[in-house]
């Protein structure tokens, strides 16, 4: 009997061996090898040639931000006409994944740039379009061309057309009276534009979901009559800046309003922190009717809300356990589905959701400065990752609209008494991509604009 069983085993083994499959296992993530070739230039003046070259450089620089996905390499056959005569088999042989070829020719006073992108492995042309390029809006054109190609390659929008708003104290004249104004720049740190001229202090800006408005807090002077004398009282008002009309309106100027207001996912209401009840609590305020709804009710201080895009989850900071820790809840009703996310760390601050609502990035005090950490929104402590280290004190993180990057401020000691504070960008794995501001005063509260689909 035993022999029979053994025989059966052997037979089944050999039968199995005939079509045995050796499992190679899961593949590692690979970086795509990308060539953005120099454009073919047709009948361009020297000045136009310079524009065409700059256009290509901007494209290359844009794609370099996604260095965790793409390895941008130089074309080995420089000078060949890759647009008019693509050589897919040769590119494939050389291990390329994507190839972007272009042709630039004059069209009236401006230029016409034709772009083609190939998926080399499949031998397919995945993108072909023509763009009108003007020198004065060159960066705009370049970013939107790069975005179109990126979408064709990955099926997702890029950060190339997004902008970053931030606050800087660079206009400060008197050291004892610090002035902070609002600025906006491209995602790559170029084209910085000043938005406000209050000669006052702008605090914690926030962008509306449709990118049309920026809300921020402002320290303003209120005039008050008391004992027949006019007194000036400083108060933190909530202001709204319309990016299209450039007009500034006051949302609320009630006494006791703190900073930290953010837009709800629909954009028709805001979440803000009010402290008139003795302790700070988070309220939702309807922008139309100005009606208030209490969201947190605990006697501890609840501040710094962040909501997911679907509006179903809110993260905030609370000192109810004794120290500042991160909580999540459903903001539709007071204290609904409250959950504590962080349990350790001396002081945690600024929890911010990723666009998909799956991750929260926050800063935490370690040793003698802040560093940034990422944790999943369920608060699974095993999914907590440290992102920064030995890069000064890193604070105020915010996810990019596609969730691939995090913008933050980093404070570094320059001399014994002087510190620089600049805006940096890293990918979600903590690989620092670059410094966006330099010598631009101390920078605070960077926020990413949304990418509109």
């Amino acid at each position, binding site marked *: 009997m*035993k022999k029979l*069983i*053994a025989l059966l*085993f*052997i037979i089944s*083994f*050999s039968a*199995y*061996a005939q*079509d*045995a*499959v*050796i*499992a*190679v*296992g*899961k*593949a*590692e*993530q*690979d*970086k*795509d090898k990308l060539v953005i070739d120099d454009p073919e230039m047709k009948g361009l003046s020297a000045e136009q040639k310079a524009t065409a070259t700059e256009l290509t450089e901007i494209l290359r620089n844009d794609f370099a931000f996604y260095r965790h*996905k793409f390895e941008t390499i130089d074309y080995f056959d420089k000078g060949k006409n890759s647009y008019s005569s693509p050589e897919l088999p040769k590119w494939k042989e050389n291990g390329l*994944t994507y190839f972007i070829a272009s042709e630039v020719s004059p069209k009236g006073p401006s230029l016409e740039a034709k772009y083609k992108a190939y*998926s080399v*492995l*499949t031998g397919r042309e995945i993108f072909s379009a023509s763009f009108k390029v003007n020198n004065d809006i060159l960066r705009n054109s370049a970013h939107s061309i790069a975005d179109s190609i990126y979408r064709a390659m*990955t*099926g997702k929008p890029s950060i190339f057309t997004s902008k970053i708003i931030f606050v800087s104290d660079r206009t400060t004249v008197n050291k004892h009276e610090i002035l902070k104004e609002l600025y906006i720049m491209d995602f790559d740190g170029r084209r910085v534009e000043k938005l406000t001229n209050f000669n006052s202090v702008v605090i914690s800006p926030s962008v509306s979901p449709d990118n049309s408005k920026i809300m921020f807090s402002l320290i303003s002077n209120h005039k008050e009559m008391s004992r027949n004398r006019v007194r000036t009282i400083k108060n933190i008002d909530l202001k709204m800046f319309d990016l299209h009309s450039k007009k500034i309106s006051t949302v609320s100027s009630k006494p006791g309003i703190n900073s930290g207001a953010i837009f709800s996912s629909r954009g028709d209401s805001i979440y803000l922190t009010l402290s008139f009840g003795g302790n700070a609590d988070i309220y939702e305020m309807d922008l139309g009717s100005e009606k208030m709804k209490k969201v947190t009710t605990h006697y501890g201080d609840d501040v710094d809300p962040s909501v997911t895009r679907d509006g179903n989850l809110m993260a905030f900071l609370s000192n*109810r*356990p*004794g120290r500042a820790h991160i909580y999540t809840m459903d903001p539709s009703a007071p204290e609904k589905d409250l959950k*504590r996310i962080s*349990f*350790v*760390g001396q002081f945690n601050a600024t929890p911010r959701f990723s666009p998909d609502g799956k991750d929260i990035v926050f800063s*935490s005090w*370690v040793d003698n400065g802040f560093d940034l*950490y990422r944790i999943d929104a369920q608060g699974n*402590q095993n999914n*907590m*990752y*440290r*992102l*920064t*280290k030995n890069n000064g004190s890193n604070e105020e993180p915010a996810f990019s609209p596609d969730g691939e990057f995090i913008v933050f401020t980093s404070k570094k000691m320059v001399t014994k008494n002087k510190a620089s504070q600049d805006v940096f960008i890293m990918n979600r*794995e*903590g*690989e620092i991509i670059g410094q966006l501001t330099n010598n631009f005063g101390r920078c605070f509260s960077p926020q990413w604009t949304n990418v509109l689909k």
Partner: protein
Amino acid sequence: MVDVENNPSFTKKFLITFAAHAGLLLLAATVGKVVGTIWKTNDIEIIRSAVRVDVVGMPKYTVQELKEMEKNAVQMPKEADAVKSPDKVDQKTETPDVINKNDLVVQEAAKEKEKKKTNFLSSLSDYAKKDVKKDTQKGKVTGESSENIKALVLEGNRLSQGNALTGDYADGPGSEFGNYVQTLPGAIRPFWRLPDYLLKKELRCRIRIYLNSNGSLMKSEVVESSGEPEFDERALRAVKQTNFPKPSEAVGQRLTSSGIILGFPL
């Protein structure tokens, strides 16, 4: 002195006072109870918050540092390989000892299964032998077989190659062919890479490869496509880039004539 006992007005007043006091007491108790409940819920909340503090520490290493460490750990066995002459390819060093946490290799799992089957068979026969002695040695029942089972469990936890005696493949115990093909995944994996968007799709393709007697690739063909040309192409490219270890003569013949199917990833 007033006669207390026989004074009807006193009794009446006493009763009223008594009732009033009892009522007050009851009220106090009720209020206390209500207040107590409120107090208690607050208490519970505070305890809950306090108990759940400080379970783990903040992570010390950054993601980038961890990646660097992982990379170094994986690279080390490869360097050891390079030192060896290509003629004496040792199967033990072929698979790196440190395996990425994501490396779920079904082939390894299948191998463990086979191992369990054959080992189970041997432990069964051991057990059968033991059965005879069992009556005489009641004290130490499963001496050797429990050792076997322990070893089996230990091996089950291990993802590394093991040695030639235990590293069975489907082809039968200690088969040369089995030992050889087990080294293939480790050889191919450094070249088996996918872009982000293909990784997320969870596709599968199968490729049959034929090898020359010196281990060089003779032919490769997709026997089961993933439906995504780029995925198949990537798998084929990984196979083409791999330097396969030199098989023995018998194994080489078999690989030349019938080849072997590789599953990407399974």
